[in-house]
């Protein structure tokens, strides 16, 4: 009486299996091209990051911290970076950073246009919003396994899974930023006869830049959170160290690598936030 009757069943798992199998076979070549592109991009970014000696990065972070906040923040952030190196996790950090940079890069390229479309069209908004909800609440393990089948294991499915997980806040905040541009500013633009494109690039985007940068910041933090999970599909980096520590029941090693991730997250968060704040000031001065 209280239990849902067993005779009434409509399950979608077989349908999804069939669709996935079809996609796997039909778009095999396409996914190979995507995988090669991501792999190339990764190697490029990793090469670029390795191009800078470690002390230059430390100085760079210290300087950025000083410029964006004050000298205390500069010292704090750069000493966190040094600590990651002291833990012996520098090379792993570079790998992790490369995955994050590419995921955020892809998120920006794909996310901002979608955010703009959502702000411009009610129909697009109504379609994309529930999709974003699903992307954010779907347990990530669910799409990790198909990601391996599409892209093999390692960095490529890691970028794929990280992007899916990290892109929603950027789309949402772009949408929010564009749709909350002051009505009077838009009116002013119209009365000067600006075309829709001019309106977008000269008025709406600059006005909402600080909100969009907040979105980039949130996306970066989400990507950071995905880094450990993506080590389950064979991605290396700090996440791999954490996973190995879990597999070997090494509490100390787990925490050490865990703290390295925390430090990296704090550095990225503070720098991006400080960077976003500079836009805020710029806009208010112009107005």
């Amino acid at each position, binding site marked *: 009486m209280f239990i849902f009757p067993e005779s009434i069943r409509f399950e979608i798992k077989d349908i999804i299996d069939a669709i996935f199998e079809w996609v796997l076979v039909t778009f095999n070549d396409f996914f190979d091209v995507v995988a090669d592109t991501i792999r190339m991009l990764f190697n490029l970014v990793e090469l670029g990051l390795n191009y800078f000696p470690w002390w230059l990065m430390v100085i760079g972070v210290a300087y950025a911290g000083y410029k964006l906040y004050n000298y205390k923040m500069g010292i704090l952030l750069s000493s966190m970076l040094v600590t990651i190196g002291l833990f012996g996790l520098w090379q792993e950090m570079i790998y992790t950073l490369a995955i994050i940079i590419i995921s955020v890069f892809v998120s920006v390229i794909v996310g901002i246009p979608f955010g703009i479309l959502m702000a411009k069209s009610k129909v697009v908004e109504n379609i994309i919003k529930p999709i974003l909800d699903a992307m954010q609440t779907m347990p990530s393990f669910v799409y990790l*396994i198909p990601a*391996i089948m599409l892209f093999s*294991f390692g960095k490529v499915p890691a970028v794929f899974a990280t992007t899916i997980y990290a892109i929603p806040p950027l789309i949402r905040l772009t949408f929010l930023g564009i749709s909350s541009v002051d009505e009077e500013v838009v009116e002013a633009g119209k009365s000067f006869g600006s075309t829709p494109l001019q309106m977008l690039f000269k008025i709406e985007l600059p006005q909402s830049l600080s909100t969009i940068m907040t979105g980039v910041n949130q996306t970066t933090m989400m990507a950071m959170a995905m880094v450990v999970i993506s080590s389950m*599909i064979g991605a290396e980096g700090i996440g791999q160290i954490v996973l190995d520590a*879990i597999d070997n*029941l090494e509490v100390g090693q787990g925490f050490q690598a865990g703290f390295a991730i925390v430090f990296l997250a704090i550095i990225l968060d503070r720098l991006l936030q400080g960077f976003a704040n500079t836009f805020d000031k710029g806009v208010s001065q112009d107005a």
Partner: protein
Amino acid sequence: MKLMKKLMIFVATLAIVFSISACGALQDEDTIVIGEASWDSNKFHNQIARILIEEGYGVEVDLVTADTSVMVASLKADNMDLTMELWSDNIPSYQDDIDAGDYVELSVNFDDNEQGLYIPTYLQEQYPGLQTVQDLPDYVHLFPDLDSDKGLILAGPNGWSATSFLKDKMVEYNLDDDYKLKTLETATLYATLADAYANEDPWVGYNWTPTWVSGVYDLTLLEDSEYNEEDFANGIGEFPSVDVNVVAHPDLETNYPEVVEFLRNYETSSELTSSALAYMQENDVDAEAAAIWFLLENEDLWSQWVTTDAYDSTMEYLNAQ
């Protein structure tokens, strides 16, 4: 306002304290907590144990999902009472833990299994020369690693003894000149196999029997030199058949001596387990259904494990199914 806040905090604290103590009571008092790993053979043996303990001995059983490492830690911490399928050779601290009395080995569930590096059988048909682990360097072009110019051998998770054995083997056989060993979580390992199998691509990696994977995919074990204990410690030779044990927390014997007596008699085989796994896969049923089928089919076997009373009440339950 302030009073309201204080009251809220008080109620919240009370709720937390109650729920924690409730959990404790549920787990300790009248249930046996069995650890359940993600693979099907473990789920199958757990269902057999659950049915026999619940129906035969009238003790409630709680199945808790846990990874091998979590299971070992939970057994030690007394958060878990029993595991039906512990691959003790894959746990480096096993003998030390037994000696220290952290948990006790009740019986050997089965010990006639295989482990090692496997390739899909279709691959061996294409390349009949690839028979042994030592042949691998000649076929490195089949298993390219996209991130280096070496080949790729896929291993199980880090922390498994089998994985560190394979790492030793890489060095001893000079396989690391040509190959990289990549450790992967089991789900990831199987996903790569499933992908390779779908496209009939080459694949070489670690696997073991009994597992549903051996039932679904036709795999061939790469041969290796014969096992001997001394060489094995250095990574040379094939995997021996390992003991897969029924292991319990020491307190289980004090609390449920009858159940422990049954568990001490528990013994199956790799073949019996595989037959149940195949039944599951072929009929698309869960472990519980497979366990009921198994108990009905193999009455002679398990009737020797349990007391007459337990046998009668379990039979009654099975016939009602």
